[in-house]
């Protein structure tokens, strides 16, 4: 019973990471209808920025915030400089651009920071832990929940958040009320980049930091986004926690830790076959 409890709670903790990645993916999907395959690598690179700053002597949370700033600015810049020219390109071209971006950022990180696996500090005092969860896992859940709450408040209660939602839903009508739609897109990419960076920085003490650290996490993030509903950000976040729990339970009791990653693929396939809109998504019906 105690072991089960441990697996459940630590699954929820990991789920927070997947929830953040899924939220970032959904934010970009809603406004562009594309999946950003480079989301994980953007986060990984920002985690390296944080690590470099920490090693240079900055306090952890200062480095954390600076890395988020970097993630925001670089995310917005990627949209404006690299993605924007492909606005009207066919889907496959855009997929190739995203994949290219993935490999470029990955190689850039390997070149700048080496492919060596390094440890990453956790800011949470060891005393925070209990018999079910480590201090870092508890801190990670708290950081995830605070992030989700802030994002929710931003979109629900600020005029900028409202304009971003409007621009994603109906760009033409948004222009007609004076919303600068292209800037809203860049802003969305910046926010998604920052959320992805939080996920990577929180995951790094557990999975260790190296250029490929986000591969598996991104896959779970996809699974979470699909499970919750690719057009519902809050569904995607809930999906993240569910995927985290399923992953841990399956790893411990069904497939074993070596085959854990296949759980993500199974979730993706089952969702696409049985309920493509996800648990909380709306089915979009188009008249033809």
């Amino acid at each position, binding site marked *: 019973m105690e072991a089960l409890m441990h697996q459940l709670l630590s699954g929820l903790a990991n789920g927070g990471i997947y929830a953040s990645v899924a939220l970032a993916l959904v934010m970009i999907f809603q406004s562009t209808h594309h999946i950003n395959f480079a989301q994980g690598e953007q986060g990984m690179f920002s985690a390296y920025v944080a690590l470099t700053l920490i090693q240079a002597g900055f306090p952890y949370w200062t480095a954390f915030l600076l890395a988020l700033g970097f993630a925001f600015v670089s995310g917005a810049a990627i949209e404006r400089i690299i993605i924007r020219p492909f606005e009207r390109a066919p889907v496959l071209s855009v997929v190739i651009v995203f994949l290219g971006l993935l490999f470029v950022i990955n190689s850039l990180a390997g070149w700048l920071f080496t492919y060596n696996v390094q440890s990453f500090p956790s800011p949470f005092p060891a005393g925070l832990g209990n018999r079910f969860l480590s201090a870092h896992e508890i801190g990670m859940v708290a950081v995830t929940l605070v992030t989700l709450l802030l994002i929710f408040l931003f979109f629900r209660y600020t005029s900028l958040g409202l304009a971003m939602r*409007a621009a994603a*839903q109906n760009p033409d009508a948004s222009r007609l009320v004076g919303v600068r739609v292209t800037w809203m897109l860049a802003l969305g990419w910046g926010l998604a980049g920052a959320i992805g960076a939080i996920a990577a920085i929180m995951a790094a003490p557990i999975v260790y930091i190296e250029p490929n650290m986000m591969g598996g996490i991104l896959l779970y993030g996809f699974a979470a986004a699909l499970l919750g509903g690719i057009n519902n950000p809050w569904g995607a976040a809930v999906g993240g926690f569910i995927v985290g729990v399923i992953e841990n339970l399956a790893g411990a009791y069904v497939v074993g830790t070596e085959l854990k990653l296949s759980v993500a693929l199974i979730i993706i396939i089952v969702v696409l076959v049985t309920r493509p809109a996800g648990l909380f998504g709306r089915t979009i019906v188009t008249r033809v």
Partner: protein
Amino acid sequence: MNPILDLRQVSAAYGQSQVIHGLNLAVAEGGITTLLGANGAGKTTILRAICNMRVRVSGEVKFAGRRIDGWQTEDIVRLGVGHVPDGRGTFVQLSVEENLLLGAYTRRDRAAVARDFERVYGYFPRLKERAAQQAGTLSGGEQQMLAIARALMLRPRLLLLDEPSFGLAPLVVQEIFQILRRINEEDSVSLLLVEQNANLALDLATDVYLLETGRVVMNGPPSVVSNDASVRRAYLGY
């Protein structure tokens, strides 16, 4: 009187196909100008050309004496050009109140915006009852009211309306046209109205343009236009 909107030799095209050919058109400050014409005459395209939206424009567009051709849609809107587009441009997933808030997105004077909420709710009491409702669930007439109310929240000097009567019951249309008259008189908003319902349009207008395949074929006060034999035959049915 100086025109609030002045189009000189304006042409507009979608890709290779030109829809508007060297059009001259003016809207008097405080006036109600109506564009009449059959389907495909280019009425909607003229409104899009004024806002530089989804159409390639050449020629000169002046708003309140200022050249605005080539400007971004967002910047033209910020000058005070409200646009109620065809299809109404409703944010269907947002609430009625959020739609109206978006209408006032460019304004920073919160107290005045709050007063304007009361003002448009005064024009359209049904919107107030449905403030928290998702806009996509409103009836067609209510969505048209919402589209006009949203454009009013901008505090426009000029309002472009694309067939506000489209698909609505006659009583609702009458209500909307009465309110358009009040908006014009009480708030001194100039109107440029595209309309298929010629009787209504001629009744409201101070100036009428008749369009055929992207060109102006007649322009004058409604009394003159409605006495023209060909107009009576083609648009008024007597």
